[in-house]
């Protein structure tokens, strides 16, 4: 089985509910997941952020002077991206929102 349950066994050797198979399985799954995802968490988060940034660029392209035929549809998405937009401009080193029509702070 997964090696995730190796430490699991050690961890819970003294625990009273050893017979509880379901909890044990749950714990094993948790360890396996940590084992699978832990090492690459930051790489994947970074890749995901890059994709999100590209998406944001598409949504706000019209405001930055890049014509976008899908503006009519992306306009609706703008409020949903408000929070992420704020994070984005801070990450890009801009204290305040760079867009005149889109003030988040």
């Amino acid at each position, binding site marked *: *089985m*997964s090696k995730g349950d*190796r*430490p699991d066994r050690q961890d819970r050797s003294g625990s009273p509910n050893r017979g509880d198979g379901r909890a044990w399985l749950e714990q094993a799954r948790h*360890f396996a997941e940590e084992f699978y995802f832990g*090492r*690459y968490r930051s790489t994947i988060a970074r890749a995901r952020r890059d994709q999100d940034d590209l998406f944001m660029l598409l949504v706000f392209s019209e405001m930055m002077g890049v014509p976008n035929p899908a503006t009519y549809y992306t306009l609706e998405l703008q409020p949903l991206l408000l929070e992420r937009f704020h994070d984005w401009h801070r990450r890009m080193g801009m204290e305040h929102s760079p867009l005149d029509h889109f003030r988040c702070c």
Partner: protein
Amino acid sequence: MSAIVVLLAGLVAMALGYFIYSKFIAEKIFQLDPNFRTPANEFEDGVDYVPTNKFILWGHHFTSVAGAAPIVGPAIAVIWGWLPAFLWVIFGTIFFAGVHDAGAIWASVRNRARSIGAVTGDVIGARARSLFMIVIFLVLLMVNAVFAVVIANLLIANPSAVVPAWGAILVALIIGQMIYRRRTNLLTVSIIGVVALYGLILIGPMVPISLPESFLGLPQNSLWILILFLYAAIASLLPVWVLLQPRDYINGLQLFIGLGIVYAAVLIGNPTMVAPAVNPDVPAGTPSLLPLLFVTIACGAISGFHGLVSSGTTSKQIKNEKDVRFVGYFGAVGEGSLALAAILATSAGFATLAEWQALYSSFGAGGVNAFVQGGANIVSAGLGLPQDIAVTLLTVMAVLFAGTTMDTGIRLQRYIMQEWGTIYNIPALRSIPVATVVAVGACVALAFGAGGLDGSGGLLIWPLFGTTNQLLAGLTLLVITVIIVRLGRPMWFTLIPLAFLLTMTTYALLIQLVSFYNDGNWFLLFLDVVILIAAILVLLECVGVLRKHLRERDARQSTG
């Protein structure tokens, strides 16, 4: 002598090292403090900084540092007899590797979890930092070249492993898709993955595959090397979740299973150590044991590469500073046990001494193939597996280790290239495809440049790789020593390993310099000179910085 005795002696010694020596180091030298707020807690962000259970973290750390190197090194070094290799692996793990690995994590944890390269810049200076980058680049270059040669040789020697070795990549690709697209339960996926991998190993001997003897004027060996680099280049360009992540996972599971199989087979079969304890008549052309043993076995005894893993990712996840001892030191013990398995397989896996001598007919000749042959004999005798399946099993184990290291190595090299593109303002080098081509090209050049088109010279690089790896370890030990001196604690426990390493590496480089010159191998001579310069710079850096700090400490003591 019974192999079980050697196995138990090794394990007991390493266990004593962990329970006694590492306790001493952790309490008296590093003075690990359970109340210290580690970077994982201080900067917790759920991404880079995540306080992690120490057993999980140990698993990550161990599988990141364990690769084909602790198999290749001991498998070559057994040519001097099993006892020197055994002693260096055991004492190296206890007094060198454990302290080095735990020390690297500790140094990083105490410096906001920054990488050991960055810590070097702070603690020693910018020059040492540049030196660090150069040595890292050389290590990666050599590891990729050597491993391509190792895999090519293995696949030619054991055609039955071709299908499972490449099939493992397919299994990894499917696992990645199942997890990210179908969100399948990871336990189910793990079972499917392991069953598929071992199923392929069963099928392998039925469908052996060999490349044509010669194609476009290239021998079989070079063809495999080129195919491997082509694969590594493509793999390094794919998003990590597609291939690298599932491949690492399967490889990690396989590491534990494989190690378990070899140890169980030794315990059940109780083979005899056929190889001589100390080889009285080494084949002609074998370099002297001193100093070459100490650079032939790098990983398994002490390896600078571990410091990079320790400080890059592990240190960001340490939940409690006390865990540094378990994760770092016990990680090194895990690696030592892998090297021990390699020693057992290569010295107890043969029926007669003549059979062993036939494999170890010249320096570098036995190597991984001896591990596969010997290991397979032990496994088939101990567990009753058919010989051809046992051979395939061991080959796949070695190929997967080496392959995963290559995947990561090429990727890291590309990052370094891109960074150089930024630092020296070469826009072309900043683009991912160009950086990949340059990185792969350098490795291919090294694999072929070392010994001609058949790539046979690739293994000549092995001791040079060990040397560079030790240099890296030396730099890390220097950083740890300087930190310890600054804190006014005893420095001998890191300074003596450091001095030993630098002496052996410089000595080995000089010996190899002469032998490359005599063989007229100008390419490796050049490489040797480059590493020698790096070694001398490291040595000067050590003397300079330690003198400065010791003087400061004395001044403080006399005034205070």
